[in-house]
């Protein structure tokens, strides 16, 4: 049975600079919550508050049933992977990993078994007798992971634990973390900048911006149903295309792009479902959000009801392997379409794009909120 975490209007001020601006968050026991957000938005600070390494300016934190506002880190039953690794320089890898067990007087045999198990998992079993100074960045990061994992506490806190690994190892470790979480069922809070890591690991994702949590929900909802422009723009790689325009009401509702020299204005028809919901007046400024995968070559997908086709010349072609990204220009904004490699054409050629308007999102240009 794991413990949940509850944050109640948590604030943190560093010498007049408010870094965490009132966060309420309830994390269920056994959940795997991924924290994402731009650099400097307060993710590490929030983890430190949960760990007890920083004092709260105001608010309360509960781990399980216990209010831990005044409980020192060592009595919180947590383990943490630090963004800076923070390995003990004078100790060997083995002692780094078992230090927490030594201080808690875990029997020697149990320590040895744990080291065995996790060093194999993290592929550091040949490094056990080295000092941290003799390891590469990725190896240090795995030792830091090992140090947190062996303890099997109630709550795991991970601060970008895979950021320094090569692509292959990162995917392997991601899978191992997921397996481990399913096996141990402990609560985890995990900070990452990697979109795929966030989507694959999380039971829920919290998107942070500038000391606030913008949205906290399951990955599918964060991706398909972002509450505002910030969340929509942050999740997804390549990011969602954002096209500013105006609402036009006529026989049906459109989003009209501004007129620019040498280009026809485009009028994106809004599907009925969306049009019914939007009460904005004619001429209201909006942002139309279309993910790259919702723009493809004309006729390359099964026909649907809400499709809009237009022609634009290709500016740049970026093959990624399974898909090819095509960059083109609409009213001065670069848009990205994700097409099948066999549909791609060389740069400069006119191209017929098809948009699935069912997957388009509409935002208010002024407030950034979803319409």
């Amino acid at each position, binding site marked *: 049975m794991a413990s949940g975490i509850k944050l109640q209007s948590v604030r943190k001020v560093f010498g007049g600079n408010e870094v965490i601006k009132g966060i309420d968050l309830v994390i269920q026991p056994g959940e795997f919550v991924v924290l994402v957000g731009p650099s400097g938005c307060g993710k590490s600070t929030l983890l430190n508050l949960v760990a007890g390494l920083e004092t709260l300016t105001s608010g309360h934190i509960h781990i399980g049933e216990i209010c831990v506002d005044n409980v020192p880190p060592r009595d919180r039953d947590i383990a943490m992977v630090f963004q800076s690794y923070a390995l003990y320089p004078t100790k060997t890898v083995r002692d780094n990993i078992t230090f*927490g067990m030594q201080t808690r007087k875990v029997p020697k045999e149990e320590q040895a078994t744990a080291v065995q198990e996790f060093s194999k998992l993290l592929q550091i079993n040949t490094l056990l007798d080295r000092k941290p100074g003799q390891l590469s960045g990725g190896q240090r990061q795995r030792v830091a992971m090992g140090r947190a994992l062996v303890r099997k506490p109630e709550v795991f806190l991970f601060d970008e634990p895979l950021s320094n690994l090569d692509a292959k190892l990162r995917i392997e470790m991601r899978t191992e973390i997921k397996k481990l979480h399913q096996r141990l069922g402990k609560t985890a809070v995990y900070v990452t900048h990697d979109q795929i890591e966030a989507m694959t690991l999380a039971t829920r994702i919290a998107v942070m911006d500038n000391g606030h949590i913008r949205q906290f929900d399951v990955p599918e909802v964060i991706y398909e149903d972002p509450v505002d422009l910030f969340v929509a723009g942050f999740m997804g790689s390549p990011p969602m295309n954002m096209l500013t325009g105006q609402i036009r009401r006529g026989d049906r509702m459109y989003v009209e792009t501004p007129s620019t020299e040498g280009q026809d204005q485009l009028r994106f028809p809004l599907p009925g479902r969306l049009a019914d919901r939007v009460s904005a007046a004619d001429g209201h400024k909006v942002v139309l959000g279309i993910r790259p995968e919702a723009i493809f070559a004309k006729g390359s997908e099964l026909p649907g009801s809400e499709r809009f086709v237009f022609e634009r010349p290709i500016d740049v072609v970026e093959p990624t392997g399974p898909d090819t990204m095509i960059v083109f220009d609409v009213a001065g904004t670069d848009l990205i379409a994700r097409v099948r490699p066999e549909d791609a054409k060389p740069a400069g050629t006119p191209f017929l794009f098809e948009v699935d308007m069912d997957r388009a999102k509409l935002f208010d240009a002024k407030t950034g909120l979803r319409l």
Partner: protein
Amino acid sequence: MRQRSIDGIVRPKGVHHSLMRILLYAVLGLFCLYYLIPLIVMISTSLKSLEEIRQGSLLSLPRSVTFDAWAKAWSAACVGVRCNGLAPYVWNSVLMTAPAVFISTLLGAMNGYALTKWRFRGADTIFALMLFGAFIPFQVILLPMARMLGLMGLAGTIPGLIFVHTVYGLAFTTLFFRNFFMGVSDGIIQAAKVDGASFFGIFFRLVLPMSLPAIVVTVIWQFTQIWNDFLFGVAFTIGDSNPVTVALNNVVNTSTGVKEYNVDMAAAIIAALPTLAVYVIAGAYFVRGLSAGAVKG
């Protein structure tokens, strides 16, 4: 390592540069000589017999080497009225220096650790006040300290002297360790806290092993200061409990009998030998520790 650091320097070549180089070494040599002559004179004089000293010149090397003066300085020279040599006083100095160095270094390390890694309200003020202690002219505190030692029942004893040296060494040892720990990442301490270690657990098991360079520098500094101290020794000890520096003064300044320069020189060298030894043994660390900012975990 030494070899490699020389190989890494790119030097210009040519007659002009060679000449400059020769000039450079000539000047360096001259300064070296200037620095070393007193020591050479002391050593050579201590190895001469009184007879030879009276006849020869100050700078000449001993014609026949004799260790009589050394033996006398060690075990038979008269310190005041007693003629047992310096040996008991060297022992006094050891008994006084070792604990004072140990305690002041340990407390300094703890202070530095608490001031940087367990920051509390007013930590900077406390540090500023402690630093102030490094600038107190020691003559100022002689009388109050004598009174205090009297009240504590430690007047005229070696423990009393240990106490004084520990207290006045703290300003320096705290400064050394605080500056060293400023460069140690807080993350390590945080990780240890999460790992369940206590204040002292972290100090003894992680911080102290990491601070070897700072320890070496501090020990050398404290050892030299305390061993070479004369003022506290002469003010707070009497006769039998004198440290070797005070005893040396008494040997050299005896007004009775003929002046035995060779014995004086030998005695002075004996009194200075331990600090020299500490430099030779730990000197490499001293230099490395001074640039400790560059030492990474």
